[in-house]
């Protein structure tokens, strides 16, 4: 029998992007498989939950768990994997911070279901069907995992050893973390891995703003012909770079798009969205106090923009659902 380390991958409430980033390793994935056994990977390999249940506790060396916790199945499997794993890594923004699914926490579950199952233009709502935990059919009962009233991040429900940010984590960082993990060279538990400490601005080569620069109107990226050499904020476009952890290699900036904040709060930032409000608010032109509201009104969806990946991880979310 082999004594190779055992790896597991799981997707909870996620889009699948985190799975893609692992397959993006390409031939390097073959190297990984030479050094380790993958024992569970629903997206790519035919293992069942019962295979995991049959394992001894701590039999898996490392589980990379992506996706937020949206329903009872997500939570059940996260607990199962936690029990069976020596190291649990929250992999990707959703697992780390709640991610895009976490934006659902702005709404109650009933209005979300109404939108998704009744009023969405692509849905035939004539039967008013809603998913039920149990549906009786002639062949027997069909069960669906109940939806939770709000989205959680992994560390809210179980112990997490490491946090690997990104939507998705970029492949070079994934490779570095795999190598460090297989060599047993991970930092002390609790650390954010596969990322830097400072903010995206630290590695952004764009020309920074001049003293006294002020914003009178906010624009969304598609509304401006963006100068690729200038700080987005100086072009009136909200960029999450000042508050967001670097380590992504700035693919968005390289593509002339502002930072969306997926690597989460940098060291020293407590609450990503509130801190960004502290940055953006100070940049608004205040020469004419009567015009402030007009300027503020040009910010479309502040919660979704400032907390795009971190709403479920915010202090406000904690206040709402605690």
């Amino acid at each position, binding site marked *: 029998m082999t004594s190779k380390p055992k790896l597991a991958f799981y997707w909870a409430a996620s889009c699948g992007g985190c799975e893609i980033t692992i397959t993006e390793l390409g031939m390097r994935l073959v190297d990984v498989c030479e050094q380790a056994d993958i024992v569970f990977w629903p997206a790519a390999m035919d293992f069942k939950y019962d295979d995991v249940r049959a394992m001894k506790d701590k039999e898996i060396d490392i589980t990379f768990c992506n996706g937020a916790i949206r329903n009872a199945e997500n939570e059940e499997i996260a607990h199962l994997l936690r029990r069976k794993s020596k190291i649990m890594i929250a992999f990707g923004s959703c697992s780390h911070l709640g991610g895009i699914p976490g934006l659902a926490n702005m709404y109650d579950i009933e209005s979300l279901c109404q939108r998704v199952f009744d009023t969405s233009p692509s849905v035939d709502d004539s039967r008013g069907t809603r998913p039920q935990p149990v549906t009786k059919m002639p062949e027997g009962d069909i069960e669906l995992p109940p939806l939770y009233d709000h989205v959680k991040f992994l560390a809210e429900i179980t112990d997490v050893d490491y946090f690997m940010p990104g939507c998705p984590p970029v492949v070079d960082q994934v490779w570095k973390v795999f190598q460090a993990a297989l060599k047993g060279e991970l930092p002390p538990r609790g650390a954010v891995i596969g990322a830097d400490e400072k903010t995206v601005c630290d590695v952004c080569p764009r020309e920074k703003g001049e003293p006294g620069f002020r914003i009178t109107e906010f624009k969304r990226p598609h509304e401006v012909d963006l100068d690729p050499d200038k700080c987005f904020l100086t072009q009136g476009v909200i960029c999450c770079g000042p508050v967001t952890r670097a380590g992504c290699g700035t693919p968005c900036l390289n593509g002339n798009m502002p930072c969306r904040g997926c690597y989460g709060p940098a060291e020293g930032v407590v609450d990503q969205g509130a801190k960004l409000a502290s940055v953006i608010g100070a940049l608004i032109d205040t020469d004419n106090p009567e015009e402030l509201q007009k300027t503020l009104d040009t910010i479309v969806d502040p919660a979704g923009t400032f907390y795009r990946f971190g709403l479920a991880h915010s202090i406000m979310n904690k*206040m709402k659902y605690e």
Partner: protein
Amino acid sequence: MSHLTALKTFADEVKAIPGGEHLELCYSCGTCVSKCMIQQKLEPDYNPRRLLRMVMEGMREEAFKSPTTWLCSECDLCYEACPQEIHISQVIAAVKKLAVEAGYASPLTPVAVNEDLCSGCGICVMVCPYEAPSLFEKAVDGEMDRLSQVDSNKCMGCGTCVAACPTGAIAREGVSNAEITAQFPTDRTQAPALITFICDWSLRVDKDLSILESYPQEKVNIVHIPCTGRIDPQHALMALDSGVKGVLVCGCKPGECHFKRGTDVASCKLNLLDTILGQMQQPQQQIRFVQIGTQDRGRIRDEIDSMLETLAEPMEAE
């Protein structure tokens, strides 16, 4: 006498600096002094009328040593009042420029940059009302790193940059992130009903301070800040998270901010926070921002009482 020698009087030097040219319009009426908050609240020896007079009399060293030269924060309450329409803060700035050139230094405590935490984002450079911070390049571990530095003679210590700095790299003694959050309750069961962040300039008379002191600390916790430009929405949320029911932020009326724009900056930040609270379907009454005018003596009591009343009622999202 050559033309250059003729320029050498102190008054001429001041007038040669843009902003200093209106010096000679001053007929020493003293209206500026009567409007000045620094003279009333901080430094009785502070006196723009006297400083301008010193300049006209050629009292160079005395002018450079005068607190008036260093403490003026360009709030411009005197500018509006001056019958001669002299932009007095600009004349004072001209004197200060010459003082710095002559080797004098500001007596104020400036903000300081922790380079280990600085990302060189330049937010401080943009938001400072006094152009005190700037970016520079420095070799760190063999690589050029972009960092912030602060001109201590320009910094007025308002804390607007401290609040805007994303990583806490900029701090000012007394109002660093750690020093502010250390004033929040550690035990939820003992948390006061209200935390009030108060800009010390918005306290209009000594009586206002005694009003603040009249509230028991178990009920109203006062956090003093130099200007509401120092307000960080993170701190408002952390305060609520520590168990208090509400956060009241007291600043100055627009146009009367001691540090030019702090109160408007706070207004923008707290407005954004309010919108986000609304989007999260959370009660918005728990955070309130009030702007107190220079003539609103004693209003602080009404504001605190009104907030306590609001907090005593059940709160629901609108």
